[in-house]
């Protein structure tokens, strides 16, 4: 067991994947010599060579398009998109090609491509560096969309994503890169929580609080702040597509209340899908409507306003309070 930052845990997970399978490659802007702008790929090019850790031209569509070609050739590319707001030039390749190729070919083609995307705000960045674009991708059938929330999980999730024969959009909460956690780097991968399962991070009895990525920690802090007067069960969704409805339903049927928190705008966000599904599956168990806490229906604001835009501990607790006001 070692104490690692989330960034270092990803680095160790990538290293282990590169060691385990010679077909695994890393490609992206500045991922080689520099080790990535967040240093997630630090030292990997030095140890695995320029053919396996590729500094690419500055072209996101090119990164994903050539990764598709490499996957057709039998490789398992792990692509880094430098920031959330820069993924959009690649969305045609992701949605029209990567997501659909297995379906179009009636299962004859597998594209085991992982797309790592640092996501979310809270670091005072300039525009296009703080976004939460997950809902664009959860809407595309054929993609697996996951988000890691802490170092230990990041370490196994990145390896599971690379081992998956489906394309995976892998969100990394950039403001949590420096959070430290205990990581068991000796644990076998098959003992990890499967990639498509949610995880109860804090058990509770009064209300189910669902989140993922950067807000999982905030949700846990919110729950601690009101315990023991109010018992909040916090679930880290981990898999945003497909959703692990079994874990969610089991919890909501026990607690009778459900709040979803994410950094992305509430409107047409992932919370809407969850609310509709929970309402249908748990209708007779619910004491209140499923409530959503998230960002507003505006573009991401200048960073001096982001504390008003992003849900924080108080806004999450406000959502929880509302769930008890019915």
């Amino acid at each position: 067991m070692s104490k690692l930052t989330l960034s270092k845990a990803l680095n160790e997970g990538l290293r282990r994947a590169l060691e385990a399978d010679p077909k695994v490659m890393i490609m992206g802007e500045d991922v080689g010599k520099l080790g990535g702008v967040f240093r997630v790929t630090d030292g990997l090019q030095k140890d695995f060579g320029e053919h396996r850790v590729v500094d690419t031209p500055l072209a996101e569509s090119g990164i994903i398009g050539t990764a598709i070609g490499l996957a057709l050739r039998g490789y398992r590319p792990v692509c880094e998109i430098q920031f959330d707001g820069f993924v959009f030039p690649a969305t045609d390749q992701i949605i029209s090609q990567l997501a659909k190729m297995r379906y179009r070919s009636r299962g004859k083609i597998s594209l085991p491509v992982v797309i790592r995307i640092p996501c979310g705000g809270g670091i005072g960045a300039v525009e296009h560096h703080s976004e939460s674009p997950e809902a664009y991708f959860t809407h595309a059938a054929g993609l697996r969309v996951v988000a890691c929330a802490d170092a230990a999980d990041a370490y196994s999730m990145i390896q599971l994503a690379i081992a998956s024969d489906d394309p995976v959009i892998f969100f990394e909460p950039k403001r949590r890169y420096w959070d430290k956690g205990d990581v068991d780097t000796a644990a076998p991968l098959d003992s990890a929580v499967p990639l498509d399962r949610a995880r109860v991070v804090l058990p509770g009895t009064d209300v189910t609080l669902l989140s993922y990525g950067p807000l999982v920690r905030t949700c846990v802090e919110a729950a601690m702040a009101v315990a023991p007067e109010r018992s909040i069960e916090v679930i880290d969704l981990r898999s945003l597509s497909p959703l692990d409805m079994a874990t969610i339903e089991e919890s909501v049927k026990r607690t009778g209340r459900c709040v979803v928190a994410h950094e992305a705008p509430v409107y047409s966000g992932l919370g809407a899908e969850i609310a509709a599904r929970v309402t249908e599956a748990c209708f007779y168990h619910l004491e209140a409507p499923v409530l959503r806490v998230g960002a507003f229906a505006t573009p991401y604001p200048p960073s001096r306003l982001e504390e008003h835009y992003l849900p924080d501990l108080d806004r999450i607790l406000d959502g929880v309070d509302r769930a008890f006001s019915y």
Partner: protein
Amino acid sequence: MTETGLIQLLTPEGERVDNPAYPLDEAADIKGMYRDMVLVRRIDTEAIALQRHGELGLWASLLGQEAAQIGSGRALTPKDMAFPSYREHGVAWCRGLDPLRLLELFRGVSNGSWEPEEHKFHLYTIVIGDQTLHATGYAMGIQRDAAEDEAVIVYFGDGATSQGDVSEAFAWASVFNAPVVFFCQNNQWAISAPQDRQSRVPLFQRASGFGFPGVRVDGNDVLACHAVTQRALQAAREGQGPTLIEAYTYRMGAHTTTDDPTRYRLASDVEVWRLRDPIERVRSYLARSGQADSTFFAAIDAEANELGERIREGCRTLPDPAPLELFDHVYAGRSAILDDERERYAAYLESFEQTDTALEEARR
């Protein structure tokens, strides 16, 4: 027509042209090329007719582009990989693909049912230019496999050269020196947009800005297309990186069966190109040089008739997929969300069967 540096080995009249850079290949199977061109033209004609009869939803005709496709397609070795756009029925033929596999796509019973690695022919790509990046990535894989006897060819049109992905593919292939041949069939029309809406310079000249050679070949000359492609593929295999080939040709038909080219181009322009027909010039050459006689041509025509019949019958009897196949092959692994949808829809469909059975019983 701008004919800057156009490479031609056979004139529209069927005269051989000596080109010191591309000496006559004695082994070239010109009769085989003729046969292939006639047969793919028949596939095309039949497919258009099948669309008119409601058997296909759509068809993208290759009429006029037979030489570009058969010449380049026959230059590939069995190990080379081809990435088509959606009009490369001639290249598909060269890769041994049953034309019915293509018709399935335009009939709407499949989005691509062949095994790309078996034929070394990727699925059709409809979003313009996307496949140029796939081809470049595949070529990067060949480099990593140190497979020195393999190269990649990717097909796209004049319209695609305006797409960002094509420029990105040029840049990537160049800086990584990837073994890929960019084969642009400049058929001069991107639906209704003429080539001068895509570029102010001849397309093959684009390559020099990216740092690799570009050549313009008479796209209606099967010998020239074959020779130029063979040379470019060999250069790629030998580590000399990419080449852009601009096959200067003309789309004789509509963009697809839903298009009406009389709205945007003159019949007289089409007539000019009819005189440059890719098949007629080979027929003239073969007849005049005594390499083929009327028995040969009659045999090919008979073969085309048989092929046409097989396609007509085969297309009409292509089965529709079963309803629940809708849910197959979305993921390699499980999706509980999708499993749930499949289960509910199966039950919904079954409810009709139960109602039908009940009604039948009631009638009895």
